[in-house]
């Protein structure tokens, strides 16, 4: 019997010939990522676990990103603890704010994720690592401490659902629209516990940034992990950063899937998820005209250079609407520098947008731009739960960078296809 990608990874990392859905295996963990919430969080369980050190085969990467730079004294204490602990533990890969960015972006951008690896983090959006063909999954701090200290962890082998993407994306339709479309199809709960594999000609044509966007957003469907087979673009990037890059894990021809869903992406319009669930996907035309007080472009979902490019292309020579504020958060220092080199940041600034340092602040309602009661935010981030970005009486609509940029210019939710390009 053949195996799917996730089955192969779990089998290999638990030294099994074969594994099947439902089985529980104790698998080797290759990489553990921690940030400024996870590091303080694992202190107690790690101390109680008693190993006192990082398991020898585990690569640990620490990237403070949630509350950087510190907006409160409590956050400053957490950042201090994170920095000091990284040093005490001899963590090789520590990214001080100013040298890193959003942790998930650093993980995939700096070569910390390789095909076939098992990578865990105390952060749900660790599914992003599937863009590199790695089994990335979010855990709580107890599981993370165990993975960190022992280098292994139990996993139940999930069922796999295969999603085949065909067709060509329409103008101003992007990976985010595919993700929001999938969410509207599967809801928040139909894929819980499951792994998804995304393949097909349209998936192969998508860029690495787009794979990362979909793998990131797939978590909102409740999946354990979301896997792509990395293409040449991804592998070439990884080879620049790492000496040895394993071959991508491919599913067997006779692998068993719980189901196979085929989607023609040419039928997907620009999407908007209405409050208060990422699965409330609608066509942009259904919600166009709703006034927006804040437009946010950023996050581990859509703060990459590809996202900034599409927004800048729409915004060049235009101004953000007078009744709207726009916040742009590049996903990492590298993204930020690249955006400066390409002139994208200048376009945002000229349009009257605020550009912040890389970090999670706006997306998690932590700092750098919360919304007030009755305010509406159109956001390229990943969650529109009630209260996520500030007031519980605020309204969050999720959309692609193109829709966010178009809406920022129009002052209301707008279809980017109806705006005239200016370059």
């Amino acid at each position, binding site marked *: 019997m053949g195996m799917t990608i996730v089955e192969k990874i779990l089998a290999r990392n638990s030294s099994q010939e074969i*594994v*099947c859905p439902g*089985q529980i295996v104790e698998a080797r963990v290759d990489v553990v990522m921690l940030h400024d919430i996870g590091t303080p969080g694992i202190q107690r369980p790690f101390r109680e676990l008693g190993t006192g050190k990082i398991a020898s*085969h585990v690569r640990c990467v620490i990237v403070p990103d949630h509350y950087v730079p510190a907006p409160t004294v409590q956050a400053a204490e957490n950042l201090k603890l994170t920095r000091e602990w990284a040093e005490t533990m001899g963590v090789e890969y520590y990214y001080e704010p100013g040298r890193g960015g959003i942790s998930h972006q650093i993980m995939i951008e700096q070569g910390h994720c390789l095909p076939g690896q098992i990578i865990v983090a105390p952060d749900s959006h660790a599914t992003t690592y599937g863009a590199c063909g790695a089994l990335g999954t979010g855990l*709580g701090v107890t599981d993370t401490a165990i993975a960190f200290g022992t280098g292994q962890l139990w996993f139940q082998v999930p069922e796999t659902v295969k999603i085949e993407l065909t067709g060509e994306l329409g103008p101003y339709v992007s990976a985010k629209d595919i993700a929001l479309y999938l969410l509207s199809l599967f809801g928040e709960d139909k894929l*819980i516990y499951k792994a998804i594999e995304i393949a097909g000609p349209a998936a192969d044509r998508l860029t690495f940034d787009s794979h990362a966007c979909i793998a990131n957003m797939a978590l909102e469907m409740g999946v354990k992990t979301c896997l792509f087979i990395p293409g040449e673009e991804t592998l070439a990037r990884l080879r620049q950063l790492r000496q040895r890059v394993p071959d991508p894990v491919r599913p067997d021809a006779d692998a068993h899937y719980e189901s196979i869903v085929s989607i023609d992406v040419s039928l997907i319009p620009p999407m908007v998820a209405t409050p208060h669930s990422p699965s409330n996907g609608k066509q942009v035309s259904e919600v166009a005209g709703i006034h927006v007080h804040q437009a946010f472009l950023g996050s581990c979902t859509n703060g990459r250079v590809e996202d900034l490019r599409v927004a800048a292309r729409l915004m060049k020579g235009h101004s953000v609407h007078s009744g709207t504020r726009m916040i742009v958060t590049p996903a990492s220092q590298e993204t930020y520098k690249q955006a400066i080199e390409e002139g994208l940041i200048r376009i945002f600034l000229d349009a009257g947008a605020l550009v912040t340092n890389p970090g999670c602040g706006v997306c998690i309602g932590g700092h750098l731009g919360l919304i007030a009661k009755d305010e509406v935010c159109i956001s390229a981030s990943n969650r529109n739960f009630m*209260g996520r970005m500030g007031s519980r009486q605020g309204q969050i609509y999720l959309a692609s960078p193109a829709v966010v940029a178009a809406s920022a210019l129009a002052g209301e939710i707008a279809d980017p296809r109806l705006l005239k390009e200016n370059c």
Partner: protein
Amino acid sequence: MIRGRAWKYGKNIDTDAIYPARYLVYFEPAEVAKHAMEDVDPDFLNKAKPGDILVAETNFGTGSAREQAAMTLKFAGIGAVLADSFNRCFYRNAINNALPVLASRGISEQIDEGDDIEIDLEHGRIFNYTSGRGFQATPMPELLQRIISANGAIAYYRAHPATLPDAAELTGTALGEEVRCE
């Protein structure tokens, strides 16, 4: 056996609601316990008594990986959570913190708020004393029950050092006896 009064909630109750992000910086049990269900039901901590049972529809604990969502319920003294289904990360976090959780499709329809509920975790049995009806869920895999019985994952790993890498040499062990590949 776990017995308590049921408090009912809907579907897709997310971790931002169970434990809002504004308290993420806290990890001390006493502080974490103060915010249980704050954005779902601000009155929850005034109503619920230690040992009470939370009953929800599908996908309880969806959203972020924050362990405080499970910790806050455990530290607030909640006896167990029953749901039609759980988000996977919340489910792991609950087990790791010895918060009993049992998933059973349709169970939320069989329990009303205030019902007197008993759960037999080992056998996956649920009994509603108020309606006089019993239900059979799929029992939790044995390993997970052992973790809960050990009072959480850390205690379990400490008690089973053979699973630590120095002893096991990372050979990997299939722990599940219940499922066999064909």
